[in-house]
C-alpha cells in the first residue's frame, strides 16, 4: 500500500463516524434546533451499541441499539427545547455532560455479570471487499474494502442531500428552520417536524458512536469519542448545512487522523500528546477560515431560526 492509498483509506475509515454525526446535526439544525448534546449521544451510542452487540453476539443489534439510544436522548432534548422552551445551548451541554457520565457509569456496570465492558472483545463489522471495485488502483482499498457502516454512509450522504434539496418534505424541513411562522401558516406542523428531525439527528449521532465501538476501534474505552461530537458540530458550519460538503470536512479530519497514525507507526519521537492536538487545532483554524470566508462572500449561513423556540402565540 503506498502512502496516498493508506492515508485515504484511514481517512475514510476515521471520517465515517464524523459524517453520521454531522449529517444528523445538519437535519436537526435545518429544522431550527441546535443540539449540543451530540458528543453525549455519540458516546452513549458507542457504549450501548457495543454492549448490545456483545450480549446478543450480533453487531446489527448493536447498531440498532446505538441509534435508539441516540434518538432517545435527542427526544429528551426535543421535549426540553421545543415544548418546554429551555435554552438550547445549556440543555445540549447538560445532555453532553450527563451522557458522558452515564456512558462511563454504564461502561463499568453493563458488562457480563454487571461488571465492566472495558477490555472485552465482541462482534464487530469486518471489511467486505466489493468484488472488482476493491482491486482498483489507489481508490480500491481506500473506498471499497470497508465495513458495511462505511458503505451505508456512502448511501446516506447523497440520500440526505437529495431529500433536503430535491423533495417536498425536505423543503418543509428547511422552511421550518428558516421561518417557522411562515411554515406554520402553510399548514405544516412545526412541532412535529422539529421533534422528528431532532430525534433522527440524535439517532444518527448514535450510529456514529457505534461505528467507533463496533468497527473503527472495536470495544469500549472511556472517552472513546474524544470530542468527535464537537468536531461534528464544527463540521456542520464548515459544510454550510449541506450534507454533500460535510464529506470534504470529515475526510479532512479523517486524513489528519491518518497522518497521526502513520507518524506513530513509523516511530516518531513527537509526543503522542502533541500529535493528538492536531484535530482540535485544525477545527479552530478551519472554523475561523470558513467563518471569515463566508462572511466575506455573504453566503447563506445558519438557518435563520436556529436555536429559537417557536411559540405560536408570540410574534417575532
Amino acid at each position, binding site marked *: 500500500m503506498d502512502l496516498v492509498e493508506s492515508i485515504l483509506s484511514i481517512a475514510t475509515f476515521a471520517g465515517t463516524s464524523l459524517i453520521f454525526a454531522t449529517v444528523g446535526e445538519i437535519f436537526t439544525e435545518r429544522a431550527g434546533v441546535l443540539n449540543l448534546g451530540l458528543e453525549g449521544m455519540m458516546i452513549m451510542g458507542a457504549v450501548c451499541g457495543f454492549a448490545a452487540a456483545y450480549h446478543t453476539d450480533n453487531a446489527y443489534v448493536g447498531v440498532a441499539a446505538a441509534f435508539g439510544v441516540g434518538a432517545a436522548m435527542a427526544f429528551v432534548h426535543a421535549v426540553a427545547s421545543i415544548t418546554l422552551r429551555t435554552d438550547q445551548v445549556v440543555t445540549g451541554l447538560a445532555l453532553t455532560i*450527563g451522557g458522558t457520565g*452515564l456512558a462511563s457509569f454504564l461502561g463499568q456496570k453493563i458488562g457480563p455479570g454487571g461488571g465492566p465492558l472495558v477490555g472485552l472483545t465482541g462482534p464487530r463489522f469486518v471489511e467486505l471487499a466489493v468484488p472488482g471495485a476493491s482491486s482498483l488502483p489507489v481508490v480500491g482499498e481506500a473506498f471499497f474494502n470497508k465495513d458495511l457502516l462505511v458503505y451505508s454512509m456512502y448511501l446516506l450522504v447523497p440520500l440526505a442531500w437529495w431529500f433536503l434539496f430535491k423533495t417536498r418534505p425536505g423543503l418543509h424541513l428547511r422552511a421550518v428552520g428558516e421561518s417557522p411562522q411562515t411554515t406554520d401558516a402553510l399548514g405544516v406542523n412545526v412541532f412535529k417536524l422539529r421533534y422528528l428531525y431532532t430525534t433522527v439527528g440524535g439517532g444518527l449521532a448514535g450510529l456514529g458512536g457505534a461505528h467507533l465501538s463496533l468497527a473503527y476501534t472495536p470495544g469500549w474505552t472511556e472517552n472513546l469519542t474524544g470530542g468527535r461530537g464537537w468536531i461534528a458540530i464544527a463540521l456542520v458550519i464548515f459544510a454550510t448545512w449541506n450534507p454533500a460538503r460535510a464529506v470534504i470536512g470529515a475526510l479532512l479530519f479523517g486524513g489528519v487522523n491518518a497522518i497521526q497514525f502513520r507518524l506513530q507507526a513509523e516511530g516518531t519521537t513527537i509526543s503522542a*500528546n502533541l500529535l493528538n492536538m492536531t484535530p482540535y487545532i485544525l*477545527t479552530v483554524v478551519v*472554523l475561523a477560515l470558513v467563518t471569515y470566508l463566508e462572511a466575506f462572500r455573504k453566503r447563506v449561513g445558519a438557518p435563520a431560526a436556529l436555536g429559537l423556540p417557536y411559540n405560536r402565540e408570540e410574534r417575532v
Partner: protein
Amino acid sequence: MFKLEKRLETSRRVVWGVPILSLLLALAAGGLLLAAVGVNPLTAYASIVKGALGSRVAITETLVRATPLILTGLSVSIAFRMLFWNIGAEGQLVMGGIGAAGVALFGPTALPGLPQTPWVYLPLMGLAGIIAGAVWGIIPAILKSAMGVNEIITTLMFNYIAILTYQYLFTDPWKDPQGFGFPGSAEFGRFAWLPRFTGRLHLGIVLGVLAGLLMWIVLTKTRWGYEIALIGENERAARFAGISVFRNIVLVMVFSAGLAGLGGFSEVAGVSHRLLQGLAVGNGFSGIIIAWLAKLHPLRVVGVAILLAALFVGGDQIQITLGLPASIAQVLQGAILIFVLGGDIFSRYRVLRVRTRVAEQEA
C-alpha cells in the same frame, strides 16, 4: 389540549416549589438508574450525604472540592451574562495550573535573587495563573468579536488543547527526574504552598468567596456591570447606546478566564503541590451547571458550588462503600440541570387545560 399562560406574578410557592420538585424528579431519575443496577437508591443517596457531610473530614473535603467549582462557576456566570458561551473554563483552569506551576518550578532557578517566601511566590503564582487562563480565554473572545467565529466550538477545542499540553508537560519536559518514572512534575518548594486551615482545606476557598463578592459588586454596583447586563439583554440596543461590544467581550473574557485560571493556581498550590494527573476533572463543565443553577448570580454560585461539591465527594464515597462508579455524580449533575431547565417554564407559565373546538362540539 393544554395551553401555557404567562404568570403575571410568581408566588413564593412557585419560586421555591418548582426547583425543588425538579431536583426531586432528577433524584428519582437517578434512583431508577441505581435500582436498575441493583442498588437501593435510598441507601445510595444516604451514603452520598453521609460521605459528603457526615464527619469533620468529610466537610473539609467538600469545601476543598468546592474551591475550584466556585471559581469556574463564577467564570462561566459572567461570560453567560452577556451571552458569550464560554465552555472553556476547563481548559482555562488547566492553563492557570500550568502557569502557576511554571513559576513555582522554575522561578527559583530563573530568578535566584527572588526571596523564596510565600509572600513573594504565592502572589506571583496567582498572577501567572490568572494571566495564563486569561490568555486562553482572550483568543476565542477575539475570534468571536472580530470575526464572528462560534465561541462554543473554539472554547471547547481549547479545552482539549490545554489538557493535552498539560499532559505533555508533566509526562515529558516538566517530569520529575527523581520521580521513579511516575508521571508528574517535581513537588514545589514549601514557599509555593497555599496555607492550610485544617485537613486539606486551604486558602483557596477564601479566594473563591472573595471573588464571588467582587463579582457581585462589579455586576450590581458598577457601570461595567450595567454594560454587561445590557449586552446580554439586547446587543443591538447596547451598540446604539455607544457601548463597545468588542471591548466588553474581550474584557469579560479576561475576567472570566482569569477566574478559571485562578482556580488552576488554587488547585496546584493548595492541593497537589505539583503538576500531575487530576487537574482536569471536569470542573469547567460543572461550572456551567453551577452557573445555570445559580441563575448566573455570583453569591448563589458559591452556595450551589458547595452543594455540587458535596455530590462529588459523596459520589467518591459510594464508589468505596457500595462499589458504584463515581461517575454517578456526573450523571446526577446532568440530570439535575435537565430537570431544572425543563421545570423553569412552569415558574414562568401556568398550564391551563383548554377544550378544543372538536371537544366542545362533542360535549
